[in-house]
Each structure stands twice: as structure tokens, then as C-alpha cells.
């Protein structure tokens, strides 16, 4: 079995496992998993620019929020139905990605990090400033009656779970295919040695911009899906912690691996959930876990597994 076929088989097996989880896990965990899958899609989007292209962005909350507010505002104020609103949300995020990416990619390294952070902060403040449309820091609810897709109630537990599986599964297969394509290999070449890639004749800026736009669109798809599936649009999703979180999820799971973002999001979610049962200082537990992961699993869980044991992991 070639590496491409093996990667596809692993991804399909993970999707099958996620489908199977619905039938065996208690409702509490399937409810959590639905949320985790949407957030893991966001992390996967981040992984494309960070893990595969080597761009340390601190502005991905902007893309997640662009998708969320793109969908939310046209549904709330325009009465648009779920599917076109979701498409609009994705388009908003892709457009924001194109504009901010074109500007931010004029910088590199620490400057790129700061510029992306500034764009995200500007986006957050815009959400607060245009309170008549966004309801500022409070946010707004998307009515349950509006949350349906061609007659299917997206607030239904089963529908929500499988919508999460569809979203994450599509992103997993899409990114899996992308990073094994010629374009994906160019991104990896840029990550490894940008100057060399440029010397070999690749249009590095163009490739990076395409990666940012795809990543932004996927992050926006996750943001719009979150609003649609969980019924809430709020400014906290545009705040700086939602730029940091996908970075942590990706680092914990394994940057530059297709399954790392899912595992990182899953581990972090349950770390918070169970640590909060034991102590109020659960964020300290999370911090210690991240330090330990940095010390002993510098390439993340999946990355370390791939390096030491399962070299065939995608």
C-alpha cells in the first residue's frame, strides 16, 4: 500500500470511528464530541498555515469570527436561510483571509505574528463597535426555528453530531489530499526552507497567500457551523484567546500531521473538563500539561508517535 493510499485509509478509518462513536458513547460525550469536531476543523485550518506552511499566525480568531458573524448577521438581519448563510460566512472568511493575508504576508517571522494579531484585534473591536448589528460583547442567539437545513433540524442531537462529523471529515480528507498534492509539497518546502523554494522557482508569496485563504475559508466554515449548530454568535470568539487556542490544540496534537489537530482539541477539551472537577485551578493543570508536552512531546502527540513508532501516520 502506497503512502497516499495508506493516508486515505487512515483518514477513512478515523471518520468511521467517529461515526461509530455515536452508537457507543453516552450522550454527554457525543454532545462534547460534536463541539470538538467543529473546533478541530478550526484547528485543522490553523494547522495548514502553521504546521504545513510554517506561518505562525496569531490572527485566526478573525477568520473564525468572520464566518460566524457572516452567517449570523445575514440570518438575523436578512432572514437568509441556513445553507446560503453558511456559504456567505465561508465567503466572508475567505475574503478577509485574502485581504489580511495579502497585507500580512509582506512581513515574516515575528512581524507576521504581530500583524496578524493586530488584524484580529481590529476585527474584535469592530464587533464591539458595530453593536447595532452584532449586539457587541453580548452577542445574539440564532433562533432554533432558523437552524434547519432543507427541513432538517440542526439542533437535533444526532443531526448536530453527524454535521460535525461531515464538517471535520471533509476537512480531514481535503487537507489530507491537499498536503500530498504538488501544492502541499510546495508548502512543506516553504516551511522547511523558504529561500530554497524561492530559488527553485516557486512563487512563494502566491503559495503562502493561497494557503492563508484556504485556511481562512476553513476556519470560517467552522465558525459558521458553530453558530448554526450551537445557536450562538458572540464576540468572545473573535477575542485573542481564539487565536491562541488553535495554536495550542495544534501544538499539543502535532503540527504538520493531519490527525494532530483533532487529538489536540480532544485532549485539551477533556483536560479542562475533568481537571475542573478536581480543582478551581484547572487552567494551571492545563498549563502544566502543555509544559510537559513541550518537554517530552515536542512534536505533539501524533508527531511524536509518527517519529518514534508509527512512521506511516499521515
Amino acid at each position, binding site marked *: 500500500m502506497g503512502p497516499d493510499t495508506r493516508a486515505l485509509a487512515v483518514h477513512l478509518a478515523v471518520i468511521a470511528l467517529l461515526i461509530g462513536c455515536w452508537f457507543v458513547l*453516552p*450522550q*454527554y460525550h457525543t*454532545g*462534547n464530541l460534536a*463541539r470538538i469536531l467543529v473546533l478541530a476543523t478550526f484547528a485543522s485550518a490553523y494547522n495548514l498555515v502553521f504546521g504545513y506552511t510554517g506561518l505562525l499566525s496569531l490572527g485566526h480568531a478573525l477568520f473564525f469570527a468572520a464566518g460566524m458573524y457572516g452567517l449570523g448577521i445575514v440570518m438575523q438581519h436578512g432572514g437568509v436561510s441556513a445553507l446560503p448563510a453558511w456559504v456567505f460566512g465561508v465567503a466572508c472568511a475567505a475574503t478577509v483571509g485574502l485581504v489580511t493575508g495579502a497585507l500580512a504576508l509582506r512581513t515574516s517571522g515575528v512581524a507576521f505574528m504581530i500583524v496578524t494579531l493586530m488584524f484580529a484585534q481590529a476585527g474584535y*473591536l469592530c464587533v*464591539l*463597535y458595530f*453593536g*447595532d448589528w452584532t*449586539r*457587541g*460583547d*453580548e*452577542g*445574539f*442567539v*440564532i433562533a*432554533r426555528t432558523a437552524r434547519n437545513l432543507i427541513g432538517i433540524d440542526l*439542533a437535533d442531537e444526532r443531526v448536530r453530531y453527524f454535521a460535525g462529523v461531515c464538517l471535520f471529515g471533509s476537512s480531514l480528507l481535503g487537507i489530507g489530499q491537499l498536503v500530498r498534492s504538488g501544492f502541499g509539497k510546495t508548502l512543506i518546502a516553504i516551511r522547511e526552507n523558504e529561500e530554497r523554494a524561492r530559488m527553485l522557482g516557486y512563487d512563494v508569496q502566491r503559495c503562502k497567500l493561497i494557503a492563508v485563504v484556504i485556511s481562512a475559508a476553513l476556519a470560517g466554515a467552522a465558525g459558521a457551523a458553530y453558530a448554526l449548530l*450551537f*445557536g*450562538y454568535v*458572540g*464576540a*468572545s*470568539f473573535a477575542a485573542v484567546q481564539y487565536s491562541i487556542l488553535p495554536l495550542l490544540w495544534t501544538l499539543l496534537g502535532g503540527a504538520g500531521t493531519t490527525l494532530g489537530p483533532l487529538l489536540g482539541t480532544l485532549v485539551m477539551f477533556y483536560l*479542562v*473538563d475533568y481537571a*475542573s*472537577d*478536581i*480543582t*478551581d485551578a*484547572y*487552567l494551571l493543570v492545563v498549563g502544566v500539561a502543555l509544559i510537559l508536552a513541550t518537554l517530552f512531546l515536542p512534536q505533539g502527540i501524533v508527531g511524536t508517535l509518527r517519529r518514534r513508532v508509527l512512521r506511516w501516520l499521515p
Partner: protein
Amino acid sequence: MTDRNSTTDDTAATLTSGSRRRALKTLAGGAGGLAATGALPGLSGYVQAQSAEPIRIGFQVHRTGIGAAYGRWYDRTTQAAVARINAEGGINGRPVEIIAEDDGTDPKRGAEVIEKFVNRHECDVGFGTLFSHVVIGSSPRAGELKLPYFVVSEGHHVASGMLNRYTLQPGITDVKSQVQAMAPYVANTLGKKVTMLYADFAFGHDHRDFFSEAIAAQGGEVIARIPIPPTETAFTKYFPKIPRDTDVIYHVMVGPAVLTFVKEMGEFFGPSAPAIFGFVDSLEAVDINSPGLEFLEGSYLWEGYPRYAQADQTEYDKAYREAVGVDDNGASVSDPRDVSTYAHMFGCWETLHVIKDGMQACDYKGPEDRPALIEAVEAMSDIPHSVAHPQGDKVFNGKTHQVFGHQYISRVQQGRLDVVHTTSIEDTLYEDEVDYTTQAL
């Protein structure tokens, strides 16, 4: 952290935090032990409780994040209220158990906590959320899971119709009624030309919109509206924008920057300031005698419940302060520097008593009776002034799921807050904006 302790009373603590077996063991241990704890009046209720599982109330508490100061006092008030309820025999003869979960003052985590209450802790109801964005983020999930969700938020989100039939606010009034009730006093006593300085986000916008309308109805007007960005740390540049003919400055700030705001405003105006009126929200958990706040002397503040014990203090207020552990200055009896969030936290106490009354009215037995509990609370109307409702009598509107009650205006005088005006409940009423009873249960 998930807390399963619910009372400061030894006996009640045993009943609420321990297992049923431990509760039985305690009771079987003899009345002597109970008498020693002073809990004998509750004994008859607990006889029933021997065969009953506790009522589990999921308490969504802001232990971390921006709401932590409020959360600490909401927690103390909740524990005190549950201790009282348990000492009186619990609810329908069953002890009350509080399952506290930190939501990090974050709407995403708030929704996850709601999920946890229902599917992991098997709570009967959810309760206690303060910050509006957490309420709004959590409410859809509560509605989907059909969990009665009793919020203590003072936001207008419940009565506006934005939420759902499973979300209720029966223990604290909302910002629209509070602001509206201030207008007659401001217009008739302080002046008719008002300049508003407000935090430029939803909470401030609510004040801007509701007060502008209310003061106009009193023959006054807002002559300038000055929004202040929430990230602002220096305020002097905003004060020259205040028109010279301003009679009253109405300020609504949120967060620790209020100390700088007040200090800079005092330095700007000196002794010739217009009348100053504000909301105590940003000064909750802050000592009114803190350095810099001396500029508030002579100004007026809205209070949901007077922080300082007044000359005409009721027996109810006395009992409530004693139960929660708050002194006559609104600070902790064990640490005078630990100032309470007195204007809001009574909402936890009163909401828990509403839950008790609702569960007793519908003979609540378990989660299958959640719809009946909603209907029982919706059927409530007049709520009399009592130890269970020490802030004052109230009127609950079953259609909008919002309670209405008296509001207080206090003046800062010699480093304390003295009530100068108490509004009527009628001053706080407005037209219904929703009828939740038409939604399916």
C-alpha cells in the same frame, strides 16, 4: 471545580454534600447531635428526606475570568440560601445539593457546563449565571436540553424575547426596568439636561437607548452621548466633550478602569461639577472609600439593594446579612476589606427561593416534571417582601419570564451610601415584548 457542598450548617452540609447513606447515618445518630447544630426545626422535613435523593441544582458560577469577583459572592450567597432552605426541610422533603461548575465567564464554556449539568450530573435545574454573554451563549443549549435555567443576570435578554421558554429571571430585575425607573428622579431632582458617558458595548448601549427614551418621557433630554471604548485607560480627553449646560452626568462604566475614570472626572471638574449619577455595577466589590473615589462624594448611584444597612433596616435584611456573612457596611464579617456585590447577589438568594416555591407548587419529583416547574413559576405573580425576598416585594411576569421590583437611589455621603429614593414597582414596568408561554414545552 465541581462543588458538592451546599451549606455552612453542619447538618445540612452532611445532607447535601454527602451521600444518602451518610445523611441517614447522621439522622440515625440521634437528635442530640442535631440539637447541637441548632437544626432541630428542620428535622421533620428531613424525615421525609430519608427516602429521597437530593434536588440537584447546577450552579453556573464565574470563578475565573472577568466575573470572578461577582462569582465569589454569588457563591457565598448561594451557599447561605441553600443552608437556609435545607435547615427548613429542603424542597418537598428533599435536601438541596448544589453542583457548582466554573464557566470561566465564557459563553462557550457556559454552554458546555449546561451540557454537563444535564448529561453528567443529572441536575434538576440550572441556576446562577450573571454575565449576559454567558447567559445568551448558554440559553440555547438549556432550551434544547429542556433544562429550566434560572439566571441572575439583570440583562434585558430574557424579557426581550431573545431566549426561550426554559430560561427565566425571577430573582433580579432587568436593566431596562432599572434604567427606566431612574428617569423620574433624575429629571425631577437632579436636572433635565443629561450627558451620558458609557462603556461602548452592549451593556452601555442598553443604558444609552433605554435611558434616552425614559428621560424624554419625563420632559428631559440627553444632550450628549459620549461612548468610551472598553479598552480605554485614560479618560481626561472625553470630559471636554461634555456640554457646558449639562445638569447631570450619567456614567456607566464597567471594570477596574472605573477608578481612574472617577478620579480623572473629579480632577477635571473640581468643586463645580454638575450632578453626577451612575450605576453601582462597576463599583461592586469595591470599597467606596478607596483612594480616588473621594470624588464620588455627593454623587448618586443606582443600587439594586442598598449595600449599607439603612436607618430603617428591615428584619429581613438583617437576617439575610447575617446568613450570608455581610456586615452593615456591605463587607464580609470576616474581612472588612472584602466588599460584597450587594446590589446584585441577593438575586441568587431570591431565585433559589423561587425555585423552591415552584418545585413545591408543582410537587416536583424529577426531571420529568421540568415542564411543570416552568409552568408553576410562570403562574407566579406577586412575591411578598420576606426573608426569602429581602430586597423587597416583587411582581413576576410569567409571559416575559422577568421579575419587577423596587430600585434604590443612594447618595455618597461621608464615605457611605445612603438611600435617598426608592422607586415604586410601577416605575419599572414596561410593555411585554414576548410571550414565552406560547412556546412549546
